[in-house]
């Protein structure tokens, strides 16, 4: 079978399943008694096993299978969940991730996991192994009596909740027979959903389907490997059913097992866990018999089914194509500008109308093109819970990680770059920030430290904060270190504010850990983080109180390519000032301008604000010197500092696409880039930060 075309899908889906495993394992650690979580993990692992076996990655399938056995034992309450067991399961997930990554890089997914496998086996064969064998031998014995073929070991038996059991038991008492039918489709079956439909059609003509695994919905979406199981209540004989189902083409094997009272009762005693999500109550057949009961049960079973996160349909598109789309769209914007000016000249009503309608459609289109590049920051955040767990176990600290705002959306390019800096900062918080439980207790803090990872939108920016309630930054230690490393001199050091001292830890060649650990503090630390974030057009700051904790705050532009600007005019030239730096605009009178130390300033709401005349800074050629009585001023901000940029006139606010000036023109003073206006001309973007140094 040609598998290459499915490889990418396989890799993506495997990653998703592994991610869901990790998430749920973390959840399980918090609620070790919650069997539904185990079921969730089991399901992910099972799907992964099926997929990898189909794709021919035996190692991957094998390890997943071993892990699944342990999970199965947990879910059947043969093993109790302990941190040690979870460690091993986490280890397996790590291995699985490594394998998938290896496959993604073109490898064969092979990896030596004998150690982990041995551990898994040891867990699995704790005490309950006998019981396990006993059960399967009973089942086998029962199977051999009735079934025409032997039940496949691989697929788990169907599980029934109490309602289904009652239905089955009652119908057997009324002279019906209950069968568990396992249907295996051929591996090269192309229309799985159609075959499923045909099988169900036959079954429903002959009896009532009580439940199926996977659920009917999933079967219809072809979310299963090759086999599925159905529980049926019928009066038709086994042989007849068997041959009828086999008549459906592309069905490879049909196994029919009779469900007896004994088996159900036995299963009931063993399986406390009821997997409600997987129950599919087929309304039509049984309702007539037990109306009241069905209603309550179907409500019970549909609610969680709906709660299961609806997977929206997606396709994957390369960033490159989106860039091309964006460029083409800009061309359109320019042409629209031309059309608009032509239509105002021509004054043809129909033309005007068409151009107007086109403009509106293009506005919508623009929104879509822009949002297409945005993805939730979750894709970066979701690897941290596991990382923090591993770190805290390695460091023997108790740490609770809280993630807030994972749904915040950011441009894809920013998302790709932000992962490493965040890993670094979180490691830093876990390693240097949070103290050991003993120290925390001695300081009167709860033993468990808290690290909060928070993301939110504000204006044109996304903020990501990493907050810990650890030791905070030790001012003296940082200062001494900085002096000894020659980053600051003693004289300068005495004049630094607390904030400036905190900033020192971002200086290159700075590392405060007394002991260099594996986790952070190799001296290549935070300065790299700062550089990366600044290269993304963002910045990072720290707030820290000794003994209380620290907060690292990262400010990032929503997107690297689209910003909101205020367009201003100076003589014939148009400049764009990023809206994110602007506080407000105002018109000032000549008499409002004051002189202070050769610097023109104004009094802006009680603050003295220096004026920067952009025509002088940018050496704009003036046709004639005009003495205006009024000046248009844009008040901009950089941190705490304010400045007033004097321009000739305001044009208006606009969303623009940021363009680089190319490799030839680099480091132009106070210009951060360019954009193309509606009239097709290039406008330069003012870098307010550079103007206020």
């Amino acid at each position, binding site marked *: 079978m040609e598998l290459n075309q499915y490889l990418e899908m396989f890799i993506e889906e495997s990653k998703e399943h592994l991610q869901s495993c990790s998430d749920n394992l973390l959840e399980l650690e918090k609620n070790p008694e919650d069997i539904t979580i185990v079921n969730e993990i089991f399901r992910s692992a099972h799907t992964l096993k099926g997929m990898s076996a189909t794709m021919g990655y035996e190692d991957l399938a094998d390890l997943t299978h071993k892990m699944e056995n342990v999970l199965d034992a947990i879910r059947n309450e043969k093993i109790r969940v302990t941190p040690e067991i979870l460690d091993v399961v986490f280890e397996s997930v790590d291995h699985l991730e490594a394998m998938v990554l290896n496959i993604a890089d073109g490898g064969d997914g092979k990896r030596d996991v004998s150690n982990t496998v041995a551990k898994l086996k040891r867990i699995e064969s704790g005490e309950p192994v006998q019981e396990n064998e006993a059960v399967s031998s009973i089942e086998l014995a029962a199977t051999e009596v009735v079934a025409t073929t032997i039940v496949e070991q691989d697929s788990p038996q169907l599980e029934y909740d109490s309602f289904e059991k009652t239905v089955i038991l009652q119908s057997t008492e009324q002279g019906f027979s209950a069968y568990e039918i396992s249907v295996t489709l051929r591996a090269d079956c192309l229309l799985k959903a159609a075959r499923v439909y045909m099988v169900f059609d036959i079954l429903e003509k002959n009896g009532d389907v009580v439940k199926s695994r996977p659920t009917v919905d999933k079967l219809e979406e072809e979310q299963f490997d090759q086999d599925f199981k159905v529980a049926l209540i019928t009066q038709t004989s086994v042989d007849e059913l068997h041959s009828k189902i086999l008549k459906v083409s592309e069905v490879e094997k049909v196994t029919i097992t009779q469900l007896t009272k004994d088996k159900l009762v036995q299963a009931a005693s063993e399986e406390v866990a009821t997997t409600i999500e997987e129950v599919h109550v087929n309304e039509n057949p049984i309702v007539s018999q037990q109306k009241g009961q069905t209603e309550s049960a179907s409500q019970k079973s549909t609610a969680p089914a709906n709660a299961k996160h609806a997977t929206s349909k997606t396709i994957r598109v390369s960033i490159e194509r989106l860039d091309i789309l964006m460029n083409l769209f800009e061309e359109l914007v*320019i042409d629209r500008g031309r059309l608009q000016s032509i239509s105002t000249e021509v004054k043809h009503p129909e033309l005007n109308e068409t151009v107007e309608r086109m403009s509106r459609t293009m506005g919508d289109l623009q929104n879509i093109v822009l949002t297409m590049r945005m993805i939730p920051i979750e894709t970066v955040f979701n690897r941290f819970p596991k990382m923090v767990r591993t770190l805290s176990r390695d460091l023997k600290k108790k740490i609770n990680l809280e993630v807030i705002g994972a749904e915040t959306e950011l441009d894809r390019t920013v998302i790709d770059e932000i992962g490493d800096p965040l890993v670094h900062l979180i490691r830093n918080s876990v390693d240097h920030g949070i103290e050991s439980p003993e120290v925390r207790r001695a300081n009167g803090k709860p033993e468990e430290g808290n690290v909060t990872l928070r993301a939110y939108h504000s204006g044109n920016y996304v903020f990501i904060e990493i907050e810990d309630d650890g030791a905070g930054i030790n001012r003296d230690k940082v200062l001494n270190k900085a002096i000894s490393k020659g980053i600051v001199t003693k004289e300068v050091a005495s004049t630094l504010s607390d904030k400036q001292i905190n900033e020192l830890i971002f200086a290159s060649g700075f590392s405060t850990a007394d002991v260099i650990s594996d986790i952070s503090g190799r001296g290549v630390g935070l300065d790299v983080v700062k550089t990366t974030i600044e290269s993304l057009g963002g910045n990072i700051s720290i707030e820290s109180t000794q003994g209380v904790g620290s907060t690292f705050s990262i400010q990032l532009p929503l997107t690297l390519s689209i910003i909101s600007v205020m367009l201003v005019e100076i003589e014939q030239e148009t400049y764009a000032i990023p809206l994110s730096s602007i506080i407000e605009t105002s018109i000032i009178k000549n008499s409002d301008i004051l002189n202070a130390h050769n610097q023109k300033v104004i009094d802006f709401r009680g603050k003295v604000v220096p004026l920067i005349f952009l025509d002088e800074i940018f050496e704009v050629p003036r046709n004639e010197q005009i003495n205006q009585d009024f000046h248009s001023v844009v008040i901009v901000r950089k941190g705490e500092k304010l400045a007033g940029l004097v321009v000739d006139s305001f044009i208006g606010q606009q969303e623009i696409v940021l363009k680089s000036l190319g490799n*030839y023109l680099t480091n132009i003073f106070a210009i951060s880039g360019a954009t193309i206006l509606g009239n097709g*001309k290039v406008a330069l973007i003012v870098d307010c930060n550079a103007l206020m140094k």
Partner: protein
Amino acid sequence: MNAVEQEILKVIVFQLGDKEYAIPLSNVQGIEKLMHITRVPKTAKYVKGVINLRGVVTPIIDLRERFGIPVSDNEETTRIIIITTDEMEVGFVVDSANDVIDIPVSSIEQQPEVVGSNEVDFISGVAKLENRLLILLHLDKVLNPAD
């Protein structure tokens, strides 16, 4: 410089003042009519600014200014030749772009001493063709702003 090793070199010929210059065709992306140039402040005098070349912001260099030839008024024939190299894309403002011709590599001579003006630094050779004299530009040197 594979092109030089071949027998024939395809070049674009353009006019600056009374001289004819040539650039290998492999480096030329296109020839544009003069369009609106946005001035970029605080750059070298020969950098005229940037243009919007089908959605790409492209810097423009005035070759007259670059070579120290007195600037003429823009005329009908003025063209922008878009040059691409491995690292960058720029446009050269020239008086006119005449034609594409094949010159035999054997006709290219090293820079003679006589030319003696500012553009000497930017020349990689001279090709003599019947009664024409083509000056081959050394692109890397023209594009290197550090001089």
